[in-house]
Structure formats: structure tokens, C-alpha cells
């Protein structure tokens, strides 16, 4: 049975990579944005008095933005498949919900992983270099920080229609990225309090490991764990609600 689920996952991955428009656009946007923003500042070594080079600063910013939208985009794919009636077809196969979720999550992580890799390469072309330990710590922490977003993507895919999922995902990414401090740090006041309660804030913090930031403290782990639990429950609820309908 688990072997069967793995074959299913393998074909899901193959489909994702073959969907050229989706695949290339998902990866191209962060790259284009990166070169547009960081390119002209490639020789700024002390960005805004942080002691960090501009190419590095923007690289990590775009990694948090790019991975978030890559992983949430599984929602768009799910909504499309539901719209085509494919999920009804799946319900009359022995595919278990667990194997179904696994296929979706693995696919979403493939896109996120590739986004990270491509942006690392882009950063390197603009002279970004970090100690290996820091690359690894950052990457590991980002992958963990993305778990709640994987769940959110699945939930949105099962709640929204093909028409509404696009704006909803775009809006969510924009809002979460802004409040999480992707584009500029959110400091002080109510907004900072709100930001710290959001998973995107900790995703940004994870990428800031590369900037010499520390690995999350207790608050960070708790917030990410809480969102993982809440959004996973939400995703399962959305899936079950969706599969009960005619």
C-alpha cells in the first residue's frame, strides 16, 4: 500500500515538472525580482548600515517570499484538479487521504526547494558567499518554517474555486510577506506584535540566519508549532468537508 502511494507521488512530481508554464514562472519570478532589486546594488557591502551586503540581504528576502508562494501554489493546483472533477475520481480509488496529502506536500516542497537552490545560485553570481554551516542552518530552518504554509495551501485548494484561488493566494502571499517583514523590518508597536505571531515572520527570521541572525528562540518554535497544528487541522477539515459534498 505504501509502495502504491509512492508511485502515485512519483507521477505527481513528474506532472509538476512537466507543467512548463507553472514550473518556469514559479521559479522565474523570484529570480527576475532578485536581479531587478539586487542587481543595481550588487556592490553595496554595508546595506542600510547593517554590515550586510545588498545581494545577501535581498537574496534571503526573496527566498522567504519565493518559497512561501511556491509552497502555497499547491493550493492553485488542487483547486484546478477539483474543478476538473479529479478528486471525485480519486475518491473511488483506494488512494488514502494520507497518501494524497503526502503527494501534495512532497510536490510543494519540491518547488520550494528548487526556489531556494535557484536563488542561492543567483546570489552566488552577485558575490554572496557564506560558511557551509550557515547555508545548512538557514535551509533547514526555512524548510521547517514552511510546514504551516504547506498546510495552508492544501486547505485553500480545498475551500476555494479555480476562479477565487488565484487572488486569494496572491493576496495571502503579499500580506503575509509584508507583515512578516520580508521587504523591510517591522519594528516596534502593534504591528511588530502582530508580526511575531505570524508564521511568515519566523520564515523571514529563518532566512535571516544567513545575515548573522540567531536561530529561533522558544517563541519562534512555539509560534511555528502552533500554526502547524492549527493549519493542519484546518487542511484536514477542508479536505473532509470537500469530500463530503456531492
Amino acid at each position, binding site marked *: 500500500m505504501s509502495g502504491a502511494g509512492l508511485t502515485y507521488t512519483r507521477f505527481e512530481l513528474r506532472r509538476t515538472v*512537466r507543467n512548463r508554464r507553472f514550473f518556469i514562472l514559479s521559479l522565474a519570478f523570484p529570480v527576475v525580482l532578485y536581479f531587478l532589486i539586487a542587481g543595481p546594488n550588487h556592490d553595496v557591502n554595508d546595506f542600510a548600515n547593517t554590515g550586510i551586503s545588498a545581494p545577501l540581504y535581498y537574496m534571503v528576502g526573496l527566498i522567504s517570499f519565493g518559497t512561501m508562494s511556491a509552497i502555497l501554489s499547491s493550493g492553485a493546483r488542487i483547486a484546478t484538479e477539483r474543478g476538473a472533477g*479529479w478528486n471525485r475520481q480519486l*475518491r473511488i480509488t483506494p488512494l488514502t487521504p494520507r497518501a494524497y496529502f503526502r503527494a501534495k506536500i512532497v510536490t510543494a516542497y519540491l518547488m520550494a526547494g528548487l526556489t531556494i537552490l535557484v536563488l542561492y545560485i543567483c546570489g552566488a553570481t552577485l558575490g554572496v558567499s557564506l560558511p557551509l554551516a550557515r547555508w545548512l542552518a538557514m535551509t533547514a530552518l526555512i524548510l521547517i518554517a514552511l510546514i504551516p504554509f504547506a498546510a495552508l495551501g492544501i486547505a485553500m485548494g480545498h475551500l476555494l474555486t479555480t476562479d477565487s484561488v488565484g487572488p486569494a493566494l496572491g493576496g495571502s502571499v503579499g500580506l503575509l510577506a509584508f507583515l512578516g517583514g520580508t521587504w523591510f523590518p517591522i519594528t516596534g508597536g502593534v504591528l511588530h506584535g502582530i508580526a511575531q505571531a505570524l508564521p511568515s515572520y519566523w520564515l523571514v527570521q529563518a532566512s535571516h540566519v544567513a545575515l548573522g541572525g540567531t536561530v529561533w528562540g522558544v517563541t519562534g518554535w512555539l509560534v511555528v508549532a502552533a500554526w502547524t497544528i492549527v493549519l493542519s487541522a484546518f487542511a484536514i477539515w477542508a479536505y473532509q468537508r470537500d469530500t463530503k459534498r456531492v
Partner: protein
Amino acid sequence: MEAHTAAGISLSGLSKTFRGPNGPVHAVRDVDVEIEHGETVALLGPNGAGKSTTIDMMLGLLPPDAGTVSLFRCDPHEAIAAGSVGAMLQTGELIRDLSVRELIAMISSLYPAPFTVDHVLEITGLGDVADQRTQKLSGGQTQRVRFAIALAPNPQLLVLDEPTVAMDVEGRQAFWSSMRGLTDGGTTIVFATHYMEEADANADRAILMAHGRIVADGPTTEIKGMVGSRTIRATLPGASVDELRTLPGVASADRHGEAVILNCDDSDAAIRALLQRYPAARDIEISGAGLEQAFLQLTSEPEEVAA
């Protein structure tokens, strides 16, 4: 499968009501069906008769308000998890970015004892397009792939909800001829259709549904026998319907303008009597009553408005 060891399909007291804009819609009302292993059964009825709702409940896609479904002594979810069921739903597209062969392999991988992909491609006539991406197929080819997906599991029960609805005449014929090859394997087949001739030609048994109820259930030959076996049509101005009705062999008579229509239980006697009594009768046609006729007769009783 041994026909007598595996119990077949049993729907008992199935009912489903939907909320509609004008009050409740009784889509399926107290449907009882027993289907034996290896039978090919047509579920016949016009749109809105309750065929698809019945099939959805049979497949566990829709929970019934009342009644039970048993597929080979299991509930639908168990039977599906065990891989005993293959189904082609009425609507649905294919997912893109896989070849026909890959899509069939993907679905087959979920089942314990599927047919080989090559075998499925062969019996569904998809060999020529096996390596094409699903999004490049024509409508008829897409229908065939959907059928292939239903068939690939090598299921004990094959359920097809209006499988030929999007096909042209040629495609429909090809579809049914490929289906006939399968029934030797002892697969139980249930298909919904509103094409009477499909049920007539391809099923052992027909279940007629109207307004959510079963109005007739029996061998297709028996269904046809439930109404006059022949119909005589003729142009015959001036003859009274009441008089025509008294002719030997005539069960009922009707008039549409100058045309008269006689439903006969003995058309040989009726035509002799008709020509003797009314030598002016012309444009005479005698036709066998197909299921269409049986269907109209059996389902035309007025019912309270269902929708």
C-alpha cells in the same frame, strides 16, 4: 470470480432528498435493487430520474438519507479501499501533463490486482494515443481514457454513469463492442443511460427509474413485453378512435390530426381488421416497440412535481 461465492450488490431502502429552491427534491425514493455477481444491468431513465444520485450513493460518494448499500458484503468505502470497484462518473476531466499510458499506470498502482497497462490500452483502443499527453486528446478519446481508468483496476464491479454521453455514433458502437469482450470475465457491470437502444443491446436486465423511483425492473425483453408489442401508424382521416379501439388485436388507439396510432398486442390481427374496415388507410407503418416505447408508457404516469 466464482459467481456463487461472492454476494453481489444490494441497495435497500435507499432514499435521498436535496434541498431545492422550491422546497425539497426527492431525488431517490426507497430504491431496492439486488444485482447478482456477473450481471450486466442498465439503469435507465430520463435526466432527473435519480440514476446518478443512486450511483453516487452506491459508490459512497454521497451518504444516503435512509437505506443501505452493500457491495460484495462490504460497505462502499470498504469495497473501494479493497480495490473491488472501478467507476466512470458522469462528469470529470483528466489531469494534465501525463501521457495516457502514465495516467493509467498511476491509477493502476493504487490497486492490488490491476490489468497490465498494455492490456487496458488494447481493449480500450487507446494504443495509438498511448504516449500523448492527456490535455491533447479529443473529446471521444478523453471519454475512452476515463473508461480505461475505470477498467484498469480489473474490478469486480464496474460502474459507468452515462459512459457514451459525449460520444458520436461511431464512438458509441466501438465503446460497446469493447465492453462486450469484458463480460466473459464475470465482472458485474452497472451502467446508467438514457439511450434505450444501449440498454436493449448491452444489458441482461434493465431497471427503469422515474422521479426517483424504480418503475420497472426485469430482463430487457420483459420490459418490452410490458407494453403492446407492435405499433401501427396510418393516415386515416375520419375514423373514430373509439371504433379503432374495438378492432381485434388493438390495445389502445390514439389520434394526431389525420394520423392514427394503434398500440397492438396482436398486430397481425389488427392490420387485417384495419384494412378490411378502413380500405382508405394509407402510409401504414408497423414498428416494434423498443424500450423507448416501454419507457414512455411506464414513466408517463403523472407524479407530483419533483423539482
